[in-house]
């Protein structure tokens, strides 16, 4: 059964001007970092959101369109629906350190993954990128988890001046041959993919596509022959090798294939 369960928002934490963490009055008994829920605003729409914390269930959401704008207008006490968890999450490598690469609103699953890595005693570096210092979300949470935090901003207002993937390369963050875990804008994911293949290190990448059902029957989230909702959203870098649409095309609500901006 997968009917949405409606629960109240118990807390809203503002991370940046456009990103907030929404805490719901719900718990997910079993989930993996990188898995997602379908978050429902009754009467409006429903969208996939990566789990940032399973207990209490939290999601980190950027204001990017009508749905997320509407969510940001909700207050503590508002009712929202959720169903899940869905998809395949990150699988933490037992050997070696972890490097988490996050851009913009891709930070949600990284908070959960960093917490899991910390529990397992895996040495973790988080490379966090954003447009500017004011747009860097959840930095204090990563620090509280004991992760080594590396910041990168497009405008140089904090940390490395430039893209987070360039920071990873130039600051030698892959020298210790970590397993790389990435979530963020697709150009960043493509750069991480290339980096992992070139350096021959393991990597897992969380990909986003327009979704309808969320559980593998409608085919709307097709990435070539892969279903992002069920085979993903987290893929090994090898699985994405040679995937035509990765970094190039997504599908709209009609199913039409469109170039990624």
């Amino acid at each position: 059964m997968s009917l949405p369960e409606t629960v109240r928002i118990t807390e809203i934490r503002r991370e940046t001007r456009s990103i907030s963490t929404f805490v719901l009055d719900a718990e997910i008994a079993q989930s993996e970092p990188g898995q997602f829920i379908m978050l429902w605003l009754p009467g409006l729409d429903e969208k996939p959101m990566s789990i940032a914390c399973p207990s209490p269930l939290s999601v980190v959401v950027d204001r990017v369109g009508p749905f997320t704008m509407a969510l940001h207008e909700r207050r503590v006490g508002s009712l929202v629906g959720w169903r899940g968890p869905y998809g395949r999450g990150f699988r933490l490598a037992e050997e070696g350190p972890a490097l988490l690469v996050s851009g913009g609103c891709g930070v949600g699953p990284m908070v959960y993954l960093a917490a899991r890595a910390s529990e397992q005693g895996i040495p973790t570096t988080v490379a966090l990128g954003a447009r500017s210092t004011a747009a860097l979300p959840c930095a204090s949470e990563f620090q509280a988890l004991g992760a080594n935090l590396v910041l990168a901003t497009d405008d140089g207002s904090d940390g490395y001046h430039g893209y987070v993937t360039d920071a990873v390369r130039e600051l030698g963050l892959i020298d210790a041959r970590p397993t790389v875990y990435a979530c963020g804008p697709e150009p960043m994911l493509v750069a991480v993919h290339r980096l992992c293949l070139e350096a021959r290190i393991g990597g897992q990448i969380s990909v986003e596509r327009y979704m309808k059902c969320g559980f593998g029957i409608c085919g709307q989230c097709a990435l070539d022959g892969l279903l992002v909702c069920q085979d993903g959203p987290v893929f090994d870098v090898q699985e994405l090798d040679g995937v035509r649409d990765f970094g190039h095309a997504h599908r709209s609500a009609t199913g039409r294939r469109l170039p990624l901006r």
Partner: protein
Amino acid sequence: MGHVEHDKLDISTTLCGARLPNATVIASGILGLTHEVMVRVAKAGAGAVTTKSCSLNPRPGYPNPVVLDWGGGLINAVGLSNPGVEVMTEEIQAAKELLAPLGVPIIASIFADTIYGFGNIARFISEASPDLIEVNISCPNIDHRYQHMFAADPYVAGQVTRHVKRNTDIPILVKLSPNVTSIAAIAEAVVEAGADGITAINSLGPGLILDIETRHPVLAHGPGGVSGPAVRPIAVRCVQAICRAVDVPVLAVGGVMSGRDVVEMILVGATAVGIGTGVHYRGIDVFRQVCRELRDYMRRHEYRSLDDFRGTAAMPSL
């Protein structure tokens, strides 16, 4: 004697001239949007693939949620989202090329909002040369008046069939709705009008589920078509009624989850059997599992082909 090796059991079938390596078909609306995924379904063991229903112009469909598992099956109101006939034509052509070596035919599902519109879309989709065309006159979820215009009225259903037949040389299956007083009467009308075969049933209802905390329907559209295990007995009864009334092949769809369910459909006369919601319960591998279960039944009963038991359901004596 009597022992037949598993792989010697013939579960192939011929549906309106199209040869299916096995009798399972992925039903329209499930994973039928892109050629790569359709090929994946064929490689997972489907005997034929059906596209998502295609219209002349692209349709985004309804907002989410469009489909949910309610406990007895699925409820859906997708809103016939599709990328339009130009894109679908390309997808079908690409799929055909990759499906040919597998010997798996492709069924193009079409719909329109007018009788003449069905003729147009049939003509356009024929350029992609699908093996069969399925004419969806029975979606319960778009504007309510369509339902009454097409699948619920023998005359209108016949007129749609005639217009489609006039615009294509490809064999057509007309997909019927269970939401009628006599599905047999509709079947007779579309066969009389030239339908080469019938697909039955489309989803039941529509039904309605509310979220009682917010008082909103759980589907964004409100009502939605009901499918899955809960509707199977109705589908079996409909298929039996159709098979008794007309003499064309029937693609039986509705709540089929297992080889046992496929056998049941064939016993009431089905030529091939569609699986939709079953993909949700058992994954894409459902086709291979169902075929294995079907062969187990045939071996137990010493049947060598589907013809050995098709349409042999016992009649109640009362």
